[in-house]
């Protein structure tokens, strides 16, 4: 294992004493790789992201290991982490309005990051800020640096957030639903920008979203989370074409497409019955069993582990893949 990975997560557990939001998650993103993390609200995907950054809310703690840039982030102090955050690992948050400091000019917020991590003087940092804003395809950078967050549009704010995250050429960028708070019309532009800018810098990307088409368009691998665990993981094309886990199947079937949304009542859009179980009251065995059509006593008693070669899934009765169906 000499090739360095952007991040290597092993048996990550995140809890606050009462509840465990992430229950043993492992994945690896190679340098420059793109991984999507999908799941419903409450599946633990955002907590996973915050744990990698060391930014969990008060009272939450992390176990397991997160290898990044030669160190285990879990064991690092806040001070040691602060020298990495924004430099080797950075994050783009969901709501750019609440995520930017309302009382500082956006240019100052970006140039602070550059000065902190690149050790350059004020003047150079300001120049680099202008260049960065230009790269983000924002209009009139010289004026924009002097604007406050509330004076610019949502899409522009998210580009500023992306500029901050990319300013120091990080090895890994975590994007937690970066376009959820944006108008549909600008979502695609912002994603394209994030994708291109990450590619130019050779940065790996961990894309957290519940929007499957985004994953299909941007990522190489995808991990599906359910109730704090990864239930299926593998190359995007394979997972989306031949999901083995019934939860993934359900997620894919509940995506609206031109074929399955009919407004005349003949809609074939299906939804997964039931709800994500509360973290303090998880079912025994496979956490998905109460909502699963093929669940058996085994599913209710024993928790399946991730298994498989390129496509790994955690299911006792996996969905038969198309070649198996053909053989029957």
């Amino acid at each position, binding site marked *: 294992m000499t090739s360095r990975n952007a991040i290597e997560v092993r048996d990550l557990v995140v809890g606050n004493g009462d509840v465990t939001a992430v229950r043993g998650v492992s994945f690896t993103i190679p340098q420059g790789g793109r991984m999507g993390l999908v799941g419903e609200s409450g599946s633990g995907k955002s907590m996973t992201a915050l744990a990698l950054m060391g930014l969990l809310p008060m009272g939450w703690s992390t176990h397991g290991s997160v290898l990044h840039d030669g160190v285990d982030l879990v064991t690092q102090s806040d001070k040691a982490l602060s020298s990495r955050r*924004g430099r080797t690992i*950075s994050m783009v948050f969901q709501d750019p309005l609440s995520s930017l*400091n*309302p*009382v500082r000019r956006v240019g100052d917020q970006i140039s602070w990051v550059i000065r*902190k991590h690149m050790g350059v003087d004020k003047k150079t940092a300001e120049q680099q800020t202008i260049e960065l804003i230009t790269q983000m395809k924002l209009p009139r950078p010289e004026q924009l640096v002097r604007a406050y967050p509330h004076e610019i549009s949502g899409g522009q704010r998210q580009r500023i957030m992306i500029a901050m995250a990319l300013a120091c050429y990080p090895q890994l960028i975590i994007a937690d639903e970066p376009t959820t708070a944006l108008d549909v019309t600008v979502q695609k532009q912002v994603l394209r920008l994030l994708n291109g800018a990450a590619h130019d810098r050779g940065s790996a990307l961990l894309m957290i979203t519940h929007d499957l088409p985004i994953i299909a368009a941007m990522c190489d691998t995808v991990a599906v989370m359910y109730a704090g665990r990864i239930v299926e993981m593998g190359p995007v094309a394979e997972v989306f074409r031949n999901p083995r886990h019934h939860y993934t199947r359900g997620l894919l079937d509940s995506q609206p497409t031109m074929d399955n949304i009919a407004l005349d009542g003949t809609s074939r859009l299906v939804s997964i019955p039931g709800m994500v179980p509360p973290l303090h009251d998880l079912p025994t065995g496979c956490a998905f069993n109460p909502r699963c059509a093929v669940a058996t006593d085994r599913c209710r008693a024993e928790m399946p582990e991730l298994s498989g070669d390129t496509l790994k899934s955690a299911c006792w009765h996996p969905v038969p893949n198309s070649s198996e169906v053909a053989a029957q």
Partner: protein
Amino acid sequence: MALYALRKLVFFIGAVFVASVAIFLLIRAAGGNVAAIVLGKDATADAINALATAYGLDRPLPVQYFDWILGMLQGDLGQSFRTKEAVADLVVGRLSVSIPLALSGLLLGLIIAIPVGTYAARNVGKPSGAVLALISQIGIAIPVFWAGILLSVLFGVRLGWLPTGGWVDWSDDWVGSIRSLVLPVLSLGLIMAAVLIRYVRSAVLDVMNQDYVRTARAVGMTRTQALLQVGLRNAALPIVTIVGLQIAELIGGTVIIEMVFSLPGLSRMILANVAAREVIVVQSTVMLIIVFVIFVNFVVDLLYGILDPRIRNAA
């Protein structure tokens, strides 16, 4: 910002005008005939009429009001019925006690409350945070006169370090003046601090949970840096609001503290003149205090504009 400041200035002038009409009418509504109030219930009708004529109190109310307010604008606060002294002269000497007392008390309150409140917010859920919250709670429960008496007993009577009361004029012995002010300022400041600590703590706590503080940490600030560089700057707005509101409390506190430490301040002068039925003196000095309170709120509004670009632009 200039437009914003101009709007706030218009509000300030409007508020002062409304307050002046209110105080003028309230005093007349209380007794009806000012001359009768001044002379008391044993006065003859002739004496009342003579006084009313001499001081123009028999003129229509709007005329009296504008006469008073135009005089105020030129620094003429009227004169005492008994001593014939100009109110302005009486007030100036008193302000040299009250203003240093009130401002130092407020300043001390802030100097204690901001770091302690911030520390309490940082340590919420830990024993040190709980102890601070408890001390602040006790401080709130202690009335300011009781704090004054306790401090006076300890430092004045027991230890004999500082005077327990009384006043030496600044021009006679400024060190003596400062020594006279130490205990009163301490009483006011500690009680102010106890109240402010709670507000600072909750303002900082609220700000610490904001997304932008998390972002600040996500780009390389330590928890403490994010607190001091991003958190406090954003918490300044609610803190400034509370300080503005506490100004009225502060003035109430100085009235009591001036009594406890026998300081010849403005508040004690007003109390004495209320007792002596010096209507004009009371009317003018209360108006001065009202103008001060409204002015502080005007300054608070301006600070909002400086602290928060969103408010500045909204104007």
